[in-house]
């Protein structure tokens, strides 16, 4: 197999040189971090007051972990390290407790992120001759814009359609001879189901590759996608705290995702004790971002579970590989690629007075797609006997949830006291989707 590179020098840098580069960038990043209100206080407590206090990579362990809650509490400007005229982009995530999180980017930060994506795309064997249909959402979600910039940098022909509208997606694939897709695995399987309906055959399409990510999926799902479409599917991993997609990506060998270690220091920790684990041990993935000046994040706990794959990859890249994501340390749900916390749903429905105190969140598979069903009990004291009030209540719950979690749920109204009651901690989430 002929292996192609975007940046061969960096991608095949030997470990000592790679670690030297990490150390240099870690020092710079600590310097930026000290410009932020949050890290100035946080690092002072550990005796780090200047980049010179980082002598070796082992000094990273002196720095405490940063959590999502730290980011929330620092909203909106507590983690901003540059003056606002240097910021060229903001991405925020929706808040589960009312407070969102924010990432700022300078021009150079966006360039660094884009460089990583260019490496990812070339590593899969795709390139400038390809037609790239980007089916991830644009906007505040980093998945869409991230790959978009990377694909343009590589010189692909980019179709920035975003998510949804399956008929049009298939039409464009056909009309423009799309060769590469960026998509969630569940949506790609759904598209296969729809091909016959729109009377399009696989032979009408020119698909070669799919970049799949944004939701956990099994090796079997990948194989199924590859068999159904006769394409190669590559796993993609990223999170907005680490810029977005392009943190780790599979090469043509498809045996784990190369993490760009000149850009990110990757650690795996025991989520309970915080102890750093060795290679091949499964734990929580922790990243330090080395390539973002506007919002430095040191030892950020992703709450994603995985492990580092031992050994060298035949492609020759020296950047170590991350396993597929094996789970989460928290109760976050991923529904058709969108992250949802049960607390977000609770917040919305408990604001509505006609809803009783008990509710349940059900997740089912509807063909290839996830279906979110919210079951609520109606509150008998506010029931006036009208069908219209029930219809309006259902519509209100649907619309409020749609606005808050960007997912169209199915809402079911139930009689007071009919949903299961739990002693102690209620089991509100019933996930009936097949496990991996």
């Amino acid at each position, binding site marked *: 197999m002929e292996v192609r590179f975007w940046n061969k020098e960096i991608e095949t840098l030997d470990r000592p040189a790679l670690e030297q580069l990490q150390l240099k960038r870690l020092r710079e990043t600590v310097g930026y971090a000290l410009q932020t209100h949050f890290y100035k206080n946080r690092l002072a407590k550990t005796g780090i007051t200047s980049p010179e206090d980082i002598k070796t990579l082992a000094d990273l362990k002196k720095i405490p972990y940063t959590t999502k809650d730290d980011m929330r509490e620092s909203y909106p400007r507590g983690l901003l390290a540059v003056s606002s005229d240097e910021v060229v982009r903001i991405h925020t995530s929706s808040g589960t407790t009312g407070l969102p999180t924010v990432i700022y980017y300078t021009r150079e930060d966006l360039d660094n992120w884009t460089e990583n994506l260019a490496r990812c795309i070339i590593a899969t064997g795709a390139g400038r001759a390809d037609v790239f249909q980007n089916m991830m959402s644009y906007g505040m979600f980093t998945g869409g814009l991230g790959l978009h910039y990377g694909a343009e940098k590589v010189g692909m022909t980019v179709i920035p359609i975003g998510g949804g509208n399956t008929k049009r997606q298939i039409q464009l694939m056909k009309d423009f001879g799309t060769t590469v897709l960026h998509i969630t695995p569940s949506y790609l399987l759904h598209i296969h189901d729809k091909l016959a309906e729109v009377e399009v055959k696989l032979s009408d399409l020119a698909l070669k590759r799919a970049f799949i990510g944004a939701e956990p999926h099994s090796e079997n799902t990948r194989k199924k996608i590859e068999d159904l479409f006769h394409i190669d599917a590559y796993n993609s991993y990223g999170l907005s705290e680490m810029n977005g997609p392009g943190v780790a990506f599979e090469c043509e060998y498809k045996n784990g995702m190369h993490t760009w270690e000149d850009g990110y220091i990757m650690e795996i920790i025991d989520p309970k004790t915080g102890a750093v684990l060795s290679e091949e041990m499964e734990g929580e993935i922790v990243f330090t971002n080395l390539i973002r000046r506007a919002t430095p994040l040191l030892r950020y706990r992703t709450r994603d579970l995985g492990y580092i794959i031992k050994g060298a990859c035949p492609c020759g890249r020296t950047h170590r590989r991350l396993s597929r994501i094996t789970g989460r340390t928290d109760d976050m749900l991923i529904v058709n690629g969108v992250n949802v916390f049960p607390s977000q749903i609770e917040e919305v429905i408990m604001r509505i007075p006609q809803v009783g105190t008990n509710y349940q969140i059900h997740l089912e598979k509807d063909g290839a797609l996830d279906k979110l069903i919210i079951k609520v009990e109606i509150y*008998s004291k506010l*029931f006036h*006997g009208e*069908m219209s009030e029930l219809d309006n209540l259902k519509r209100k719950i649907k619309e409020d949830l749609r606005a808050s979690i960007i997912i169209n749920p199915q809402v*079911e*109204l139930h009689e007071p006291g009919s949903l299961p009651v739990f002693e102690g901690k209620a089991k509100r989430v019933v996930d009936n989707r097949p496990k991996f």
Partner: protein
Amino acid sequence: MPKELSVFLENKPGRLGSVAGILAESEINVRTMTLQDRGEFGLMKLIVDKPEIADLALKDNGFASALKDILAILLVDKPGSFNKLAAACDKHNINIIDAYGFVIESNKQAVFCVEVSEPDRIKKLLQQEGFTLLEEELYEF
């Protein structure tokens, strides 16, 4: 104005029976009932002889129930009388949310129960048109 008892029910086997059981235990006589269905749930609407007692009994058993004002229009049980009522509704632009009827004495008298958004105003309109509207006597008629 007479009351209609309305009960929220999930659409699953056994729910109608539970309501019927509670009403029987409280010695409630059901004059008529109708169901409005929305797939996973529905509304059961009843005319009973002791609506307040029935409502409390259902609430005591955890049901979401409510009492609503309803127009009970007495009609002669013969061809054309429903047409007279419909014409009056058209004439006054009366919008009917839900309606159902029952015969009291075959070929003599029937009652038409109508749910409207402004019962007081529409009651007067229908009385002006010469219709007889029943009060609480509906329960025992």
